[in-house]
């Protein structure tokens, strides 16, 4: 693998640490054992919720950019998204999922998030 590195940063570890094990990626194709079912279902549901959360947040940021909101409305929106972000992090932790787990590879369409 080393001979594939054309330019390495001083710190290579962050890149390696973030790589999910390949076996994990391959075994995710089919994983129907009952114990992992709950986690799998949570993963799917949270993926959809996270997608919606990101879409709404982006929409809100765009509205703020175009200046259509009062300071009070901005504050309320911000509070809401902050709270959602926090809750998502808690739920992820509860089911032992990482941010990357809430992403789906849609093949030719790219990745969901």
């Amino acid at each position, binding site marked *: 693998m080393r001979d594939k590195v054309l330019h390495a940063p001083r710190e*290579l570890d962050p890149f390696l640490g973030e790589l999910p094990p390949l076996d994990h990626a391959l075994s995710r194709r089919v994983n129907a054992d009952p114990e992992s079912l709950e986690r799998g279902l949570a993963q799917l549901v949270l993926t959809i919720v996270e997608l919606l959360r990101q879409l709404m947040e982006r929409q809100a940021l765009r509205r703020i950019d175009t200046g259509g909101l009062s*300071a009070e409305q901005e504050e309320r929106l911000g509070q809401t998204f902050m709270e959602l972000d926090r809750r998502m992090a808690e739920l992820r932790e509860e089911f032992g999922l990482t941010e990357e787990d809430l992403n789906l590879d849609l093949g030719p369409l790219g990745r969901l998030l």
Partner: protein
Amino acid sequence: MIELYAITDNPCPALPDLAPLTIVPVNGLAAVCMPAGEEDFSADAFWRHEEVVEALMADRDVLPVRYGTRLDDESAVARAVKERRDELAAALDHVRGAVELSVRAMPTETRRAGPPAAEVSSGAEYLRLRTGADASRDHAARALHEPLSGLARASVEGRPRPQELFRAAYLVERDAVESFAAAVARLQKANTGLSILCTGPWPPYSFAER
């Protein structure tokens, strides 16, 4: 079952002898395949697949086939290639003489991409941090992508993973790989807040499907 490795020109140089590969010829193209064993998909098998595709890439132009692509038999392969013959030939022309290089960048101080919600007090501040994070991400990505895409025949920007700022694949002429790597090294010097990793040459997976 038979497993596909790559689409190449036909006629082509002798096949590498690291595996019992066979060729299914289809009107100027060749599908390089090998009978698939009973074994399941695994990391080891993935790397064996990659080894074969890279050995092919060493002395010919290839349109790499994604690991795990299996068909019933040689005639099924011939049918599948025939159906998309012109499309595949055009894709092979597109990558001819070039290889894929991958570039990824992360911030040197690793922190979460978004603001840490716990440390932010007001909603307005949260949104400001969010917008700021998006803007600096875009800025960093442009600073890398603009100069690098100028050195490539084609490029595909990927969606960065949570900790990353930037991820892209570049289709680079074989004899321009060194100068591309040198350009990455210059960008690294100019952007001390980023860790940039450039790998390759890879088979042009990101440019095989269009």
